[in-house]
């Protein structure tokens, strides 16, 4: 099977007044039509990896890679216009907090229709019908009503469903979800993950799920990449998370409190400088 995404030696760095900050330092992986989890703590470069693939790295950031290939398209050589055509149409991204990622002065329906009509030549009525279908597909009970609401009028869970609807309406082949459920309540989190799981499986998309929550990622994805300080320290099948070898992964698993186990004090992570190399 041909890989959907092929990343080789990806590097993202930001020149600053006090020197170059290397956010991502040589990340390589391939993605098929599967669910890949990227896990790491703040500053590990997980979000910058996703943004580099999406083409949303900040203007002054420098991207270098041996290979950054999306389904035959060389993303490194693609022009801005080509990247724009890909973005939203073939690669889509769901961000963490719907409060900030939705346009506050546009109704939810109009935003979804805008996405669709940017990428496909469809008429107004047709676009509206498809937007309503999509809202129904993300388990919104009353799509007609939600279509006309502004983002501040809906709950976090509803907003994130609308966001997913907007991202999936153009039928992307790759979905990058950057902490899609971190801003939501636990019970809502599961609903949103269920919807995401269902739609990704049904449409045969590739999914990159970026999160700080190792357990959540491993329960949701097929394969997990663990990042530390801009590098991949370990890659393993999600089902075999308990067999993790790297001390960082093990430490991360260990330091979380668990219901029903009494560990006082909790083991803390002893960061070794050699993990960075």
């Amino acid at each position: 099977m041909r890989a959907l995404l092929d990343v080789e030696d990806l590097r993202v760095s930001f020149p600053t007044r006090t020197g170059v900050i290397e956010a991502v330092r040589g990340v390589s992986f391939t993605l098929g039509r599967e669910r890949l989890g990227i896990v790491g703590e703040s500053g590990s470069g997980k979000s910058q990896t996703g943004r580099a693939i999406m083409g949303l790295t900040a203007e002054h950031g420098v991207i270098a890679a041996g290979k950054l290939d999306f389904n035959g398209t060389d993303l490194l050589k693609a022009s801005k216009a080509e990247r724009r055509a890909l973005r939203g149409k073939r690669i889509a991204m769901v961000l963490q907090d719907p409060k900030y990622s939705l346009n506050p002065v546009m109704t939810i329906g109009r935003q979804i229709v805008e996405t669709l009509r940017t990428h496909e030549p469809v008429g107004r009525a047709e676009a509206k019908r498809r937007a309503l279908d999509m809202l129904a597909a993300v388990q919104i009970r009353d799509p007609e009503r939600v279509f006309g609401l502004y983002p501040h009028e809906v709950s976090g869970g509803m907003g994130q469903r609308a966001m997913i609807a907007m991202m999936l309406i153009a039928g992307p082949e790759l979905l990058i979800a950057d902490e899609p459920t971190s801003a939501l309540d636990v019970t809502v989190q599961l609903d949103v993950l269920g919807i995401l799981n269902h739609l990704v499986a049904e449409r045969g998309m590739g999914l990159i799920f970026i999160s700080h929550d190792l357990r959540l990622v491993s329960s949701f994805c097929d394969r997990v990449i663990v990042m530390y300080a801009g590098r991949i320290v370990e890659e393993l099948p999600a089902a075999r998370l308990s067999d993790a070898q790297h001390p960082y992964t093990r430490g991360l698993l260990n330091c979380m409190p668990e219901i029903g186990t009494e560990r006082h004090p909790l083991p803390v992570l002893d960061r070794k400088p050699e993990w960075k190399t």
Partner: protein
Amino acid sequence: MTPALAIEGLGVAFDDFVALEDVSLSVAPGESFGLVGESGSGKSTLLRAVAGVTPVSTGAIAVDGMILGKRRDKASYRKVQMVFQDPYGSLHPRQTVDRLLLEPLAIHGFDDTEGRIVHALDEVGLGSSFRFRYSHQLSGGQRQRVAIARALILEPSILLLDEPTSALDASVQAEVLNLLEQLRAARQLTFVMVSHDLAVVTHLCDRLMVMQNGRPVEELASADLAAGKVTQDYTRGLLAASKGFRRERSGWS
């Protein structure tokens, strides 16, 4: 024994919106009590009402047997201190750590401010090298330590913790949780902690109350929750949700 914190029929309303209705609970001295619920369940409002930053509509709050009236005196504020969720928002961006810690001392007229600030920083594991830094020069975990130091510098008897670790990385969360436990043991503090994370609450608290829509659902011991001895469906749902995502769940369609 007089409870450290006793709440009777507490209600909080903002105009027509009832945020909290008829909540009663009692926390013994040195105990650690957890409040669990989803957003909008009123758990933070309850903490804020105890801290005195949200006006109480009905009911009574008593700290160490003393009922807190509509107008509280300074001493009663000192006894109850709060640590907020977001360490990026709860520290003044243009004040040094030293200034941040001096402010509560000055308000409450403490002596030996110098010694107290040095001691407070030591106690939370920061050391005096952090004393003249600004909050933007600190990491999230370090900021939360400063927020804890600021709360403890007034020697309160009750510490109110509003999601103290939910903005932190897992490894930093473990460090802060350990610090809180150690401080509670050393100072015989009473904790009331709000969290949406059942694992964190059962780790730190002996008993907890589950809340929904501003009302208490159930009050139970952490051990019972861990053993699955719950009586309410809502609690059961929360417990199931905290176990993570399961593929077969998606069979809803």
